[in-house]
């Protein structure tokens, strides 16, 4: 067994559609500076850095070297990790492994993206197989639309159920000053009324049935940084800690046609693995909060089922029973989630940082009332792989 590892600091930039006032390196530096301040340490206390983004968004292939001044990594060990949508989580996992190995005391994980610098759809398409899947691809959203369609057909799920997820995420984002989308017009309106508006408004363009504009994540410029520290060092570094209880990642088949479209196998299996490792038998009762990588609304239904929070087809019930709202039994994405901010390489690391802050009770207006002992953070790569990390208020046994 490796050393126990805790998160001691988290920082992020304000998530915005375009940050023309800074280049990528300067953007990275803002998040790093904020994370160091949060942990009340300086860059001298950092032993190694793990950094990631999705290369094709900026057309720069060696961010470990290119960012070195902004990342605070001059003459230090720095490694680039890039895994598409899961990049931010893989960066966190890699930083965790560095510390758990016993070879480093404090490791800085950085995720970032400047989505405004390229054609997002064009760059995402580079994740698909060039010979077998790109020539006949409907677009980046089409695959998710096919998944949602099948899920709806399997369980009689409706467009209103999808819209209810979108409403939750956007209402939560109103509490998060860092979120990219602040849909102020939604403030104070009834949930039912908002759902009705989203599924009937002609302004809410149907991109690919059943996915409307409101069902999708935005494209964002932003960065996030998280500091991981080893047991013994962590307790001396910060008074509030979020311990890593377990982490897992899973990939299945490369071709879209070979994956199981009825069940998100990678997300389901990675979640099952971390729950088993932490001795969690009833996730809905024992997990206190989730920060999930939901790039689109129907993920907030189907993937909840696949991770074991409820049975098949029961996702809509969790949602409409307000269980996943801010003051529910299992708040999901108090930050507003990916559908409110999506700086892709930072997106999954934001899930980790936000989940850690909820445990540390540092989340300000988006802090949930209940005590958070276990918080689950996920990363999703399309299509379809998953990285998952379970955080705990208590040092794991």
């Amino acid at each position, binding site marked *: 067994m490796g050393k126990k590892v805790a998160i001691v600091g988290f920082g992020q930039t304000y998530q915005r559609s375009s940050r023309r006032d800074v280049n990528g390196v300067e953007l990275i530096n803002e998040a790093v500076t904020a994370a160091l301040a949060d942990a009340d340490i300086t860059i001298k206390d950092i032993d190694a850095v793990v950094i990631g983004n999705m290369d094709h968004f900026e057309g720069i292939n060696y961010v470990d070297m290119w960012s070195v001044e902004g990342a605070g990594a001059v003459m230090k060990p720095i490694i680039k990790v890039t895994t598409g949508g899961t990049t931010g989580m893989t960066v966190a996992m890699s930083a965790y492994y560095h510390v758990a190995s016993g070879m480093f005391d404090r490791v800085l994980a950085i995720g970032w993206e400047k989505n405004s610098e390229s054609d997002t759809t*064009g760059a995402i398409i580079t994740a698909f197989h060039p010979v077998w899947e790109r020539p006949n691809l409907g677009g980046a959203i*089409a695959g998710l639309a096919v998944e949602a369609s099948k899920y709806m057909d399997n369980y009689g799920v409706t467009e209103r159920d999808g819209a209810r997820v979108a409403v939750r995420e956007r209402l939560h984002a109103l509490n998060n000053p860092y979120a990219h989308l602040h849909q102020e017009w939604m403030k104070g309106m009834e949930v039912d009324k908002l759902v009705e508006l989203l599924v009937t408004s002609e302004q809410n363009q149907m991109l690919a049935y059943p996915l409307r504009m409101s069902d999708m994540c935005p494209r964002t410029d932003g960065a996030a940084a998280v500091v991981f520290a080893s047991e013994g060092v962590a307790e001396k570094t910060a008074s509030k800690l979020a311990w890593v209880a377990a982490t897992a990642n899973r990939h299945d088949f490369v071709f879209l046609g070979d994956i199981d479209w009825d069940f998100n196998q990678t997300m389901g299996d990675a979640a099952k693995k971390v729950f088993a490792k932490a001795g969690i038998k009833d996730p809905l009762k024992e997990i206190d909060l989730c920060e999930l990588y939901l790039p689109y609304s129907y993920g907030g239904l189907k993937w909840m089922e696949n991770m074991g929070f409820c049975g098949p087809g029961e996702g809509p019930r969790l949602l409409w029973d307000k269980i996943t709202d801010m003051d529910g039994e299992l708040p999901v994405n108090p930050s507003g989630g990916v559908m409110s901010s999506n700086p892709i390489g930072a997106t999954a690391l934001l899930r980790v940082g936000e989940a850690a802050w909820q445990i540390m009770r540092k989340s300000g207006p988006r802090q949930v009332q209940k005590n958070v002992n276990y918080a689950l953070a996920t990363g999703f790569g399309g299509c379809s792989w998953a990285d998952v990390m379970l955080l705990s208020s208590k040092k794991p046994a």
Partner: protein
Amino acid sequence: MGDWKSEVKNIVYEGQIKVPYKWNVGETGSRFFIGLRDKQEIWGVQCPQCKKVYVPPLKTCGTCFVNTDQWVKVANTGTVESFTVVNYSHGMQPAKPPLVYGLIKLDGAGGSFVHLIGGIDPAKVAMGMKVKAVFADKREGTILDIKHFAPV
């Protein structure tokens, strides 16, 4: 000290990189494409252990980690398992929207095949619909040698 910022108009530098990649399909994939191009046939490979038939072919079964060297001809017909009608446009799309994109379970294949559905009003496409591969008139050994799947 911060005054200078109010006078700066941010500059954006326009890149010009275009990289003309060429990808090796490999002999397994090439045989599949030759089947489409020359005979309008769809072939898969079968795993000797789990017996799954992969279409498109994979040289290695990921589940069993053994090579799949048994070629199996599958039908040109199949069933629509799911689909979407894409309304947005992007330069990389193979056809103008609205285009129908879906999962087709070919008769005899182990998994599904993701491709375009055509020859039908998009509003009339349905789950469970039986479809047949329509081949392109001019075939060049690519996945688009199957123009789309149309109702039987």
